[in-house]
């Protein structure tokens, strides 16, 4: 796409994702979720009129970013495209995945539809494989109640290993608590441990082997287990994303990965 990079090293990731803020942003939070979960409602409720819509660099996908103040800090909120999954089936999914992996947000909030929990959890589990800094916003609880669906958010939180905050974003219910928990996770006060799906037997052996080698190349920059899974999947887009977001001396790492894959 013709993006040139002069800077080298890890800072280039942040540069590609720089949000052009004039005020210093102290925290960057990503908002993810399926389409139609009220994600935009959450985004609008938190940022009010302090928002701006543009495009993701080099893509035709819309990007909405906004800002809010909480506990004396300036917080940038990025509304990622609504996706069912992060497997890069589409440009939207690739954009969402790339931001979560390479944009290194301080926390990821997944907005989930309480009336349709099972389908929504796919994304939560996938994001939990990439990052530990995860908060689930259980939205539309009023709609769920109307359909006689009652969700035990404490139990859900225990099972998932991440905080679950019920909200009715439409009327602002639960958002104060959501902001508090986002801040706690982003600053490390709260340390979620998202449940890691075990893939069983042979596969886990391959994962362990590949993750070990991946870790030697990338260290802690990319979640080794997650990257190993994507390689076993045969996901070509992750390799091109790595080559795009690493450069100069790092570029060879991306190449190493292509040669060494299964």
């Amino acid at each position, binding site marked *: 796409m013709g993006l040139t990079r002069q800077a080298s090293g890890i800072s280039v990731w942040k540069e590609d994702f720089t949000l052009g803020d004039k005020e210093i942003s102290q925290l960057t939070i990503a908002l993810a979720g399926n389409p139609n979960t009220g994600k935009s409602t959450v985004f609008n409720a938190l940022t009010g009129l302090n928002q701006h819509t543009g495009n993701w660099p080099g893509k035709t996908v819309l990007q909405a970013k906004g800002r809010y103040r909480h506990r004396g800090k300036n917080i940038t909120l990025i509304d990622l495209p609504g996706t*069912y*999954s992060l*497997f890069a*089936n589409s440009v939207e999914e690739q954009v969402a995945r790339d931001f979560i992996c390479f944009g290194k947000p301080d926390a990821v909030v997944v907005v989930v539809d309480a*009336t*349709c*929990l*099972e*389908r929504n959890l*796919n994304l939560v589990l996938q994001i939990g494989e990439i990052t530990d800094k995860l908060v689930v916003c259980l939205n539309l609880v009023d709609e769920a109640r109307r359909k006689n669906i009652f969700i035990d958010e404490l139990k859900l939180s225990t099972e998932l290993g991440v905080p679950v905050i019920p909200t009715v974003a439409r009327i602002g219910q639960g958002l104060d608590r959501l902001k508090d928990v986002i801040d706690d996770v982003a600053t490390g006060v709260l340390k979620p441990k998202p449940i890691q799906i075990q893939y069983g037997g042979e596969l886990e052996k391959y994962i362990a082997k590949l993750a070990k080698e991946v870790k030697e190349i990338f260290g802690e920059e990319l979640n080794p287990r997650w990257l190993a899974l994507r390689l076993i999947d045969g996901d070509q887009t992750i390799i091109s994303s790595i080559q795009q977001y690493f450069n100069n001396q790092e570029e060879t790492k991306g190449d190493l990965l292509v040669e060494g894959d299964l």
Partner: protein
Amino acid sequence: MEDKGEIRLNQLPVGSLGRILGLETKGLMRRRLLDLGFVPGTVVETVRRSPLGDPTAFKIRGALIALRSEEGRQIRVKLL
């Protein structure tokens, strides 16, 4: 020899339930169908067919999903 009661999802009559047996498609479409919840063992119901026959709305895992018949054709289902 096809099992009695095994049909393709695009043949599942409106109001009927089926259990997914497998997907005949590979690559991105397969990935997308799996992500939407069309996983073997899942129960699916045909809710509504569009006037022109395409797309068709299915109820699966608490959600309403619309599939085109070219997608429904790739999904093997056991009539319940």
